[in-house]
């Protein structure tokens, strides 16, 4: 089978036909596609960093309902509802200032300010720091929490500290 056949099976939805509502009682989404309504839906990002606007809707059990290539093309209300839950599922604080990076026994101890407030965390080894093609940097700490850095948004002193660990 060629790639085209596999693409047909993907269930890629037309964003204009997808409506997303937030179901407060169930703490999940209610998605209607072409008039058919699915309850208890959760969005997943297959490419959380490289293509954050690509969404797969699944049930809470993980069964895939459909995919939207760019959720920014949804209507405004749907987009807002979706973003509300995405904010929770993908908690990736963006580091705005690096106060201190201390190296101790193979671990880096970070003290930073983020768009979600002050925090400190520990990373281990170079593999916990990855650079995305667009220049962003993603940190994964020892507990698998994830932080994002946009180096061009940092002040000079923070950058100097960052350079030392890259």
């Amino acid at each position, binding site marked *: 089978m060629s*790639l085209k056949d596999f693409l047909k099976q993907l269930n890629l939805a037309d964003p204009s036909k997808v409506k997303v509502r937030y179901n407060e009682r169930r703490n999940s989404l209610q998605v209607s596609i072409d008039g058919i309504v699915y309850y208890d839906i959760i969005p997943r990002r*297959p490419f959380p960093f490289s293509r954050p606007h690509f969404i797969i809707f699944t049930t809470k059990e993980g069964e895939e309902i459909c995919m939207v290539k760019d959720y920014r093309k949804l209507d405004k209300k749907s987009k807002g509802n979706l973003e509300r839950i995405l904010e929770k599922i993908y908690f990736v604080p963006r580091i705005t200032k690096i106060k201190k990076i201390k190296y101790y026994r193979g671990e880096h101890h970070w003290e930073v300010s983020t768009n979600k407030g002050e925090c400190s965390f520990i990373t281990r080894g170079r593999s916990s720091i990855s650079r995305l093609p667009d220049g962003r940097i993603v940190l994964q700490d020892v507990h698998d929490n994830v932080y994002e850095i946009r180096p061009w948004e940092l002040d000079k002193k923070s950058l100097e500290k960052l350079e030392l660990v890259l």
Partner: protein
Amino acid sequence: MEKAELDEPPDSQIERFLDKGESILFKFKSDLKEDGTFGERLLVITNKRVLTYTPSTDHLESYEIDKIREIKVFDYLGNGELELELIDGRAISLIRFTRVKTADFRKAATLIEEIAVKGIRIEETAVKELEAEQEKYGKLAKRYVMVKLLKFLKPCWHLGVATFILSLLAVGLGLVPPYLMKILIDEALGQNNVQLLIQSSLCLIGVYFFAMVVGVARRYLLAYMGEKIIYAIRTQLFEHVQRLSLGFHDKYGSGRLISRITDDTSRINWFLTWGVQSFIISILQMVGIGMVVFTMNPSLALFALLPVPFVFLGITYFRKKAGRVYHKAWRRWADLSSLLVDTIPGIIVVKAFSQEEKHIKRFTSLLSEVVRANLETVKLRLEIFPLLGFVTSVGSVLIWWLGGLKVVSGEITLGMLTAFVSYMWQFYGPVNTISTLIEPLQTAITSGERIFELLESKPEVEEGNDAVDFEIEGHIKFENVYFGYEPYVYVLQGVNFEVKPGEVVGIVGPSGSGKTTLTKLLLRFYNPDKGRILIDGVDIRRIKLNSLRRQIGIVLQDPVLFSGTIAENISYGVMNAEPEEIIAAAKAAHAHDFIMKFPTAYDTYVGERGSRLSGGERQRIAIARVILTNPRILVLDEATSSVDTITERQIQAALNNLVKGRTTIVIAHRLSTIKNADKIIVINRGQIVEVGKHEELLARNGLYKRLWQAQFEEKERAKREKIQLA
């Protein structure tokens, strides 16, 4: 490869044994005589006979070509033998040779086989080709390497000139202070001239300052130039290595290639910048100082320079010996660390067999050897340097003594004597530099040789000018294909088969039978030695390499992933793949579900060579990668052999998705995977022995049946054993 000396000994030695109309085709020289002692023996192939001749004993043996039934090569320990089997059934030990000559005599055997057994007529051109091939392995002359190395300086010659001028300035400035010293002592102090004292002191400060500025500028320029040169060499090397054929990579091994790009280039960089410059500067300094002291006072100059030859010889001696001693110390240290690398990760086995004592003993004994080797290096230093120090000190005392006498007699001034002594001390700088330069200079030249060997080797697989770019439909045909990784040692011998578009063909055979080699030839990683491979009726040598390889997908037994994200690895073969295409490919490869389990899904980093994924996961990503490129022809090389049964089933499902509608060649170890193939080709020792469908082959009672039974029995036995355990 050892170069076979074709020219000697003179042909006349053998020619006297030749009949009329008989001419020499090939000659090979062995290093073992018929009695098994070292010595020269010749194997000569003519158009009528095969002769062996030992010059020292004048012993000749000859066999008619049409009496030879077979020729065999035997590899023994430390030597090998060619054996002739004659038509009358006699087996004759034709010639023996040490392993140095193995490649030559394999070639000889092939040639004898072709001429005598197969009756192929050898053309003159073949002889020329053989010579040309041997020519290729000739070494580059050292002089040549130097010139070539210096050519790398050409693009930044202006920088070179600038640093050279700065170097001259530095040398000149170095000569000034002792002279000013002389003025200071004789004219300022000697004549109580305070004005002159201040002037010359300021002058000295000025000179030292200027020397510092020149030194900094020179060092920076040198480093800058070095970086520029090494950048050029490394990019050139890397580009070249990427383009070279797989055969070259096989021959070199990745470790050696990497070290050429990193270590060898660093050494050359050092040579081109510091090496050349310090050599020139040191010579200039020696000449400059020599001239100054000889014009000042020739007889005193002679005394001053008396210790120089001793110092030079001493340092050269040290260098020479130090190389050996330090290398020994380094070897001992390497032994020790390899012991650590062995025992610490293997601690579970050490403990299980309670062998701690044994390892501790080995460690202490190795450690004491390290200590001994280290002490040896210290001893060597103590042997030479204190003595050299003493000699030079005595030299300077002699100058004070003899010079002092001259000062007392009024022949020279006190200032001049002081200047003399300080010039003498300055002289040892360049002497030391030159003697320490010799050894690194040699290693730089060796590095240069290695780099040029790499740069000058041409890809064996080259694209012809008339190569075409076309859409493959998927018809494959091997026509009488011969191939060997080493010349004349064939891995494939006369392979013929055909695959129709959309067919699935399984290739089976014992390991080492040449299965993987088939696929490597199809992708044109190598060219067949003889015969040809056709795709849709076109010789693959006439298809553009890019076009060919893009349309053939390959899934290897041990898939290679690159460090990067899963998405990047899946879209490796395609520029700008759409995200939904990546997902579709992953789904088809049964990889989507496990990928989505990672919190960062497709943006998850796979680690170096995919180390953060399991074998089965890597395998499925490799399959997705191939699905995305949508190839017309598919090669699956034992894709399921390294995983457990459940993963195998998933991979098999993924592969079934992939195979539909494509010409597929499956190389399988587990015969169950190819049971349903349209055609199964059984290969043994580089030759096709059976072709047919599964049932047909089973009915035939041949190699396939034996392989099948072996696997079947193994499974049955495993089952039985499981039951017994239960």
